[in-house]
Structures are given as C-alpha cells and as structure tokens.
C-alpha cells in the first residue's frame, strides 16, 4: 500500500521524507496551499508521484493515509554502516538493494564516513556491533606477528 517507502534507502532519506510528509499533512488543512499544490511544488517529484499513486488506489482518506505512513516509518529498522569513504549514489543504491534482498524489507542504512578505519566497515544493528574494518585487522595482525613484521622491515632496510 505504501509504495513511497521504497524510495527510502538511508537515514537521511528517512529524515527528508518525514519532513515532506509533515508538510503534506499540514497542507490538508490549508485553503490555498492545499494538498495538490504542495504535492506539485514543495516535495520531490518522485515522492509526489508515489503518493499520488497510493492515494488513488487506497480507500483511505489522505489524513489516515499519512498517519499510517508515519507509523510505518517508525517501524523502519536502521542498520548503521561506517565506511572509510563516502559512497556515490549508485553504490548506496546497490547496498540498499542487497540489504533489502538478503535481510528483508523494512531496513534502511545509516551511512557514516570515517577515514581512520582505512577500509572495510563497522556494522551496528539494534545494539549489536561488529568491527570488520581494515584498521582493526591490521592491529590484530601486528599484535600477533609483531616480531616477524619488525624483522621483515629490518631485513628490507638492509
């Protein structure tokens, strides 16, 4: 019923979308800048299209539709992903599609950028945390093979 939800891939998308829905909800009680006006002028075209499609097919009133949509937004779960680089939009879409295909719908990404992790990712979901960064892998290797690495560097110098 809520096809507009498919547009939300990240937490930033969620925040923007929520702001647009609040705007649309307020416009229900406006005379001049009413729902149609706001859909045409104040929200993104993709969002506007999705909402128009939902409203035309749903038997709910616009107010109940928006309330239901907001309730669905509250149910969305967030997967925090910290990367060493800022991914381009194509990569974000690929990641989001992979998550939806393998982990099910209702999951969005909270992407953060931290160059100090060098590579890999830090993943946190519902309080659980996993460190798959290159930095921690190198730290682990160095602490277990410290002597061998130092000897290697010394030999190279010679």
């Amino acid at each position, binding site marked *: 019923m809520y096809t507009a939800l498919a547009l939300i891939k990240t937490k930033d998308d969620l925040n923007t979308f929520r702001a647009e829905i609040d705007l649309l909800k307020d416009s229900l009680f406006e005379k001049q800048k009413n729902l149609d006006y706001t859909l045409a002028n104040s929200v993104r075209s993709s969002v506007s299209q999705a909402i128009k499609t939902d409203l035309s097919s749903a038997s709910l009133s616009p107010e109940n539709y928006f309330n239901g949509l907001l309730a669905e937004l509250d149910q969305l779960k967030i997967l925090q992903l910290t990367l060493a680089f800022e991914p381009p939009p194509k990569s974000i879409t690929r990641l989001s599609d992979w998550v939806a295909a393998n982990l099910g719908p209702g999951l969005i990404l909270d992407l953060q950028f931290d160059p100090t992790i060098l590579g890999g990712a830090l993943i*946190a979901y*519902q*309080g*659980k*945390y*996993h*460190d798959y960064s290159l930095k*921690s892998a190198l730290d682990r290797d160095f602490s277990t093979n410290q002597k061998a690495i130092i000897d290697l560097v010394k030999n190279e110098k010679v």
Partner: protein
Amino acid sequence: MKKFEELLNKTGEIGYVEKSYPSFVHVSGLPEARPSEIVLFQSGELGQVLSLKPEFVEVLLLSGTNIRVGTQVARTGDFLKVAVGSELLGQSLNSLGHPLFAQSPLKKPPEHRLIDITPPTIVNRKPIDQQFATGVSWVDLIVPLGKGQRELVVGDRKIGKTQFLLQAMLSAAAQKIVCVYTGIAKRRYDIKQVQDFIKANQITKNTVIVAALASDLPSLVYLAPYTAMTIAEYFRDQGHDVLVILDDMIAHAKYYRELSLLARRLPGRSSYPGDIFYVQSRLLERAGNFIRTQKNPDGTLKRITASITCLPVAELVMGDISGYIQTNLMSITDGHLFFDSDLYNQGRRPAINPFLSVTRVGHQAQLPLFRDLSRELTSFLAHFEKLRAYMHFGAELSEATRRTLAIGEQVMAFLEQSPDSTVPLNINAVLLAALWAGFWKGKDPADLKPEFSKLINQYQTDSDFAARINQLIETAPLFVDLVKLVKKEPALLSTKI
C-alpha cells in the same frame, strides 16, 4: 578512544544517546546491559546503568560534562569499584576514590572492591560485646556505645554534632581504630576544617576522608557513603576496628530524591522515592560486629572479630525528630544521640540530652562496673533535674535536697567538656567515684574544672598514675565498690592537684 574501541569489540554491543537530561541520559541499544553496570561514553565519561526499559537504557552520569545526543556508548561489563588499600590512610578522596583536592598523587592501591554489596548475613556477625569509647563523658558514662553499633547523631544545625564526631575520631585514633569520615554535600571549607583538625591532632595515619561537595553531581553525592563503607570494609577485613562517620544522611536523602525525581520515579511521602528506606538501610546494615577469616603467613586460616561502628548524622529543623528521614534512620540504627537546642542555648557543651537519647546495644557492651555507674548516674541526673525544676517554685529546701543539688552541680561541671578534649573511660569513672565519695565536697563547680583537667592530663601523661587508676577499675566489680576503693586512697587524687 582506544579503550572505547576495545570495549566495543569485547562486548560486541553499542548504544547511542537518544535523550539527555540533567544527571541522566537515555541510551538506545546495549541489549545485554545489566543494572548498575558501568558504561563508557565515546567522549570518555563514565555512567552507571540505572534502569532497563524496552526502548532504552537509563544511565546515571558520573561526570559533569554534558553528553551530546548521538554519542556512542559502550558497555564495560564491570560494576562500580573503588581502589582500597592502606595507601588510602591520610588521604582525602572523592566518591570514585580519586584524590579530592590538588595534592600529592595518590599511590594507587592494588585491590578494587565493589561499592554496592549485599550486607553480611547473621552467620558472619557476632554480638556487640566491647564498649566504643568516644572520649565524651556524657556519652561514655550515660549513653554508651558499643563497637559495631550504629548510633544516629541527631540535632539542629550548628549545635556541636560535628565537634562531637571529631572528638569521637580523636578517641578512636587513640585506640588504634581506623576512622573514615564521610562529608556528604559539604562545603569545601567544612572538609578543609576536618582536614586541619586531623593534621593538628596528628591522627592522619589513622584516618581517611571521603567527601562529596555540595557542588558535585547528585550521583557522586549519592555514592559517597557507599564508597566510605567499602573502604571501611577493607580495613575491617585486615583485622582493624573501624569508625565510619556519615555526615549527613539527610543531605544524602535529598540528593537521592533529586535523582529520583529527575528520573521520573513516582514520588512518595515528601516527594521522596519509595525506596529511600532501602537505599539507606542497605548502607547502614554493612556496619556491625563481624567474624572474618584471615590468612596466616603459613597459609592457614584464622577467625578474627572486627567491627565497623557507624555514626550517621541527621540534621533536624527546630528540634523536630518526627521527620520522615529522621524517623527512618532512627528505626534503622541501634539508638540515637539527641543534641538538644534548649540545652545548647543554656550553655551546655556538648548539648546531649541523655533522657531523649537511646542506646540499644551500648549497655551490653559495658563492663559490669560501668553498667552500674551508668544506672546510678542516670537515675541521679533524673532526680537532679526534677529537683531543679522544683526549685523554681521558691519552696524551702531541705538539707538533703540542698546536698543533692550541690553534688548535681558538681556532676554537671564534671560532665561538661570542651570540643577539643577527650577523656579516657577509666579516669572518667574514677573521677566520678571521687565526686560521689565527697572528695570535692563544698567546692564551687567552677573551681573543679581545672582540677579535673589536671587529673585527666596526669592520666594521659603519667604512666604510673594511669596504671594505678586502671588497677582500681579492674579491681572494683561495681560502682559502689569503686567509690569505697577511691575513699581508701585519698592521696591518689589529692597529691597530684
């Protein structure tokens, strides 16, 4: 930062601050957080898990820095501990066991103990059987305390409670008892005064100060007495008797009320939370007379007895002892010493009202001689007070009444004590016996004080004199016998004057 990352990897859990209140934050995540567990914020601050809700974990902040929403939080898997050891003697610490003021760095003790533990059960306890001499005549002779007793010190503000406590510390240090003074929501100046008193009387190596200033966080004020009790328990386990002073528990209750109201707990009577009794009783139950096991150098175990005597303080308003927290504390403790503002205004020092004071286990800890003396003195004072009230009617007094009044005035002069002096128990008893025997019959009470001071000083400095006094105490089974013995040796007290 490295430690924070290590904790994240160790526990495999992360939390995010969702809401920030004064003294609290709400943290989402941390699915396996436990109550009272310590958490570390990404910014380096520490917090303690207060409660677990389905949507968030409520964390009590242990540092004053504002925590921003979105800050990451890691579990430590540990509970709040304080470093304990003999290195703490002579130090002034805060509620977390760190040095209180800028002073020489504290050598970190190796052992750490949990601040909040379940009090020992009855199996590990022994009846109180030894008197705790406070060095204050009013208390030692009339309202005696035992080692391991919890005696509430209650009275209006600025009535001499802290002076009495300092005298008790002085007397305890002379008996090689370790003293832990806890300042709860005190001013910096008040703590400095206690420090100066300890230094001036050279009892630094027997004393530890734990203080939470009034300007500190409510969480630190709340934790201060628990830290003090933990330090006391360490010394108890080393075989030492310990005196713990909690000054004062009303402030402790008020700060706990503030925390509970901020945490949106349902307020009860006088807006205190429903568990205020439990918070203070589980602290005071950690004092007592205990049986501990100690390791011998050869590895075998031996059983020792060691006590924690606790003197919690409760401030009154206009002498009203029917307050909520005051009555709670009275029911938790083994008696109370009531400092009467009327007596204070009449000039009595210390202003202890023996008829409104109670000691539930003090008399069982006394030797039969002192128990008999207490009984005799208490009934005499009650009779004396009645006669004094009767005098106001202006009726003619009989010879016996006048004699009783004269002895009563002398006894009152004997019991009066300056805040910087302590009187050992034995010389106290002998001087009273001498008064009873009529040694100073007809003398003006004002003239007796210097004589008493000289004899007390004599006892503390002349070992032969002290030995003779102690022998009298050991020989006399009851007070009437002591009076007879003192009468037989008039030279003992008169030649030294």
